[in-house]
């Protein structure tokens, strides 16, 4: 984006937007980080899942909202990014039946050591 050379181009709403308390946001993020480290230490599957991944989503949303200022950005930017994320979900849903499992309808993985594949007799 090196070509936009001057600040006069910044739109009318670029001047003096309200700034949240960034340090506070940062402290909360660090708190969540601690939670996400301590949670998996309990070794319970569901706790790990929630503390590691749900917390990650919350952290990401906070960074996006307050640091990237998506909370005050034009709405369609949010929609754009959301649609793109949704697309990744579509990718996952379409691919998972074939890649996420070792067996499915009318197919299964062959263990490379099972010797199921035979040498041809010439």
């Amino acid at each position: 984006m090196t070509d936009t050379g001057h600040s006069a181009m910044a739109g009318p709403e670029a001047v003096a937007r309200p700034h949240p308390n960034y340090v506070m946001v940062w402290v909360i993020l660090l708190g969540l980080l601690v939670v996400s480290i301590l949670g998996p230490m309990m070794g319970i599957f569901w706790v790990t899942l929630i503390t590691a991944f749900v917390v990650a989503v919350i952290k990401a949303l906070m960074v996006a909202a307050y640091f990237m200022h998506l909370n005050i950005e034009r709405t369609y930017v949010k929609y754009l990014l959301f649609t793109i994320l949704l697309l990744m979900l579509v990718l996952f849903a379409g691919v998972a039946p074939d890649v996420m499992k070792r067996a499915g309808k009318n197919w299964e993985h062959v263990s490379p050591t099972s010797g199921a594949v035979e040498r041809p007799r010439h």
Partner: protein
Amino acid sequence: MAHIPLAATRSVTGIPAGRLAMWWVLASEIVIFGGLLASYVMLRLQHPEWGDEAAHTSTVAGAFNTFVLLTSSLFAVLGHRAAEHGDGPRAARFLWMTVGGGAVFMLVKAFEYTSEITHGYTLFRSVFWGFYFTTTGLHGLHVVAGMVAMGLVAVGARRGQRLHRVELVGIYWHFVDVVWIFLFPLLYLAK
């Protein structure tokens, strides 16, 4: 220097061209990392035994790096605030602090890599380590690229030039941060 085409100065959407383009850059980055991470997650679910491999990643280093990136993001956004108030030198200082955060991150990453590789956990050991090095490596490249961009912007910002770029490079940096926020649990916490 380059003249500014009229095209770059118009703003029909109300978002300046630079920031609008940055959002599109992020959109295309999301699909790159999204595709990579989706692939990893699917194969990880196919191979529960990868949990044993993941046990050899260093949670401490990962957590420390998360802390470093979150803090550098804070500096980036403080730099943005300074730039919006027209305080170029202050913005530049914050940017340099962000660059410093990136440098610490890469340093820790380098130690991690060294320790892992010397213990035999190389790219070839298993597909898990392949993904580990590829995702963190690709992320690391983004960190380095962000550091370079930020340094260039900081040089200009110190002289009060092109202050709007402070925000753009900041948005990019926060994105790199967000990617790490997901990499951390995927590679380090899920064991």
